[in-house]
């Protein structure tokens, strides 16, 4: 118990420290920008990992929720003049409700059928965003107003870096709390054996729906903030590829590991930028790395590395 709590705090402290000293090593705003994008992805992945890694349910449609959050902010603030905070909350509430409504029927599905259903939902959302151009600006997206709170406008990489950094630590904290709670154990039990969870009183359907909605809300909030930060949102941020990218980050970093999700998001956000030196070989290298990692480290990066350190495993 103490060891577990201890590990939790250590992890959070390390994460916080890395975030705090990182800017000293980043030469310009471009690198800050990449760090911020990694942070946004990490937030979504920490949430998605609760669903995929801990509760063992697949979603190939989470970019759709990210997209709804982003567009809710873009449209409500830009077109209807809502305060950004209110728009963000409205987006999150709408996504939570939507996720809640669709989750009940689709989470009865198993394995590949669930993959198909979530993929379908994500694609439908992205098609709607792409098509309703009167509202959303169509395939080329729309501009988004800066985020304003208490009369202060959040603008520029230097400001956003700290905003995203603090939020990420917060999201990781929430996730760690959840995992080490009765509800968290119920989620993991759903993954381990649904029927065994049921016979000791776990309403598996309820927890699946709850975690699906929760991870969707994480994605929505990240989407809203991302839209304000980037100043431009396009349906590409809600499409199938983005969903796949998110799942890949979770699995790559290590399923059922909150810090793994963070690591996966960071590595896979940096990778394409680093791979631009490969020019035409970029895709080949990216595809190759994905395959190789999953074939040789099916548990993902962090758990595999952690297993190499036997001392940590004991703790």
């Amino acid at each position, binding site marked *: *118990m103490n060891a577990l709590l201890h590990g939790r705090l250590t992890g959070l402290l390390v994460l916080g420290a890395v975030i705090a000293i990182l800017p000293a090593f980043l030469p310009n705003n471009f690198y800050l920008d990449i760090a911020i994008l990694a942070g946004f992805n990490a937030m979504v992945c920490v949430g998605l990992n609760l669903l995929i890694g801990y509760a*063992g349910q697949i979603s190939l449609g989470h970019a759709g929720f990210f997209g709804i959050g982003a567009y809710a902010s873009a449209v409500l603030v830009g077109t209807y003049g809502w305060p950004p905070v209110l728009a963000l909350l409205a987006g999150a509430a709408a996504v939570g409700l939507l996720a809640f409504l669709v989750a009940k029927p689709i989470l009865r599905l198993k394995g590949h059928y669930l993959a198909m259903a979530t993929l379908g939902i994500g694609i439908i959302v992205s098609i709607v965003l792409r098509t309703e151009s009167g509202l959303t600006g169509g395939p080329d997206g729309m501009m988004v107003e800066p985020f304003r709170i208490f009369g202060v406008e959040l603008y520029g990489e230097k400001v956003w870096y700290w905003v995203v950094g603090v939020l990420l630590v917060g999201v990781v904290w*929430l996730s760690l*709390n*959840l995992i080490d*709670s*009765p*509800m*968290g*154990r*119920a989620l*993991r*039990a759903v*993954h*381990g*054996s649904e*029927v*065994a*969870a*049921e*016979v*000791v*009183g*776990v*309403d*598996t359907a309820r927890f699946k729906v*709850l975690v699906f909605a*929760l991870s969707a809300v994480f994605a929505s909030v990240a989407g809203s903030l991302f839209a304000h930060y980037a100043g431009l949102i396009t349906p590409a941020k809600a499409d199938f590829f983005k969903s796949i990218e998110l799942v890949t980050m979770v699995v790559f970093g290590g399923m*059922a590991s909150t810090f793994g999700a963070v690591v996966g998001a960071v590595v896979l956000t940096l990778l394409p930028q680093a791979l631009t030196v490969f020019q035409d070989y970029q895709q080949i290298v990216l595809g190759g790395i994905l395959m190789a990692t999953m074939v040789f480290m099916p548990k993902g990066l962090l758990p595999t590395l952690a297993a190499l350190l036997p001392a940590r495993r004991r703790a």
Partner: protein
Amino acid sequence: MKMLTGTDIAPDTSTQVRRVGRPILKVEHLSREFGGVLAIGDLSFTVAAGDIHSIIGPNGAGKTTLFNLVTGVYKPSGGRVLFDGADVSGMAPYKLAARGMSRTFQNLQIFFNMTALENVMVGRHLHLNTRLLPALFRFPSLVRKDREARDRAARLMADVGLSRYVDADAAAMPYGALKRLEIARALASEPKLLLLDEPAAGLNATESREIDEVIKTVAAGGITVILVEHDMKMVMGISHRITALNHGRKLAEGTPEEVATNPEVVAAYLGAAP
């Protein structure tokens, strides 16, 4: 599988004081078919509170199907199940758990993605705060109760002889220990009725005896036990009452000695026509 032999059918009746408790479980005309094949047909029996009630029968007799019907894993095609006087036919397992029914599985259903202790703590689910917000923000009350649950789970593990596995990953434990872990997990939910599906299968003689003791202790603690087991020595040794099944139907019911001497039961086990 052990064959029924002469020595096996010699229950130690002297220690068996017949207590007739109120009925805790009533199965009435229960049936279930799979694609036209009847797995359970018109089955009725009653389990008295406080008993160790065994269900025996050759492979394919429908014992596990019966467990699945009683615990809500499968929905019955016909008939009903009454638990504590209420009709619970087809009720979801988690609702039955809340009413005080839990079970173990013939094919292990362990949460291999957790530690042994956490497996048992999941068993405490019904007695803990499982709401989202307290979990996310780690309310002090939740942390305190969770700590209690942890201690209690550790005690339960000790009760079933698993003290040395408290911090182990479930995935790293031997088969025999996992069998007991399932019992500990089921007990953690504080059931009134516990269904054990072949708790001794795959265990050696020493381990079987240990399980035997565990079951007796459980029953002594006031928990009704329904037991499916092929180890006839164990069944005959600890059961108050036995229901014998064959081809999904009831073959015989009674005290161990009644059932053991029932020619139909003997025939079914020997594979001969009655």
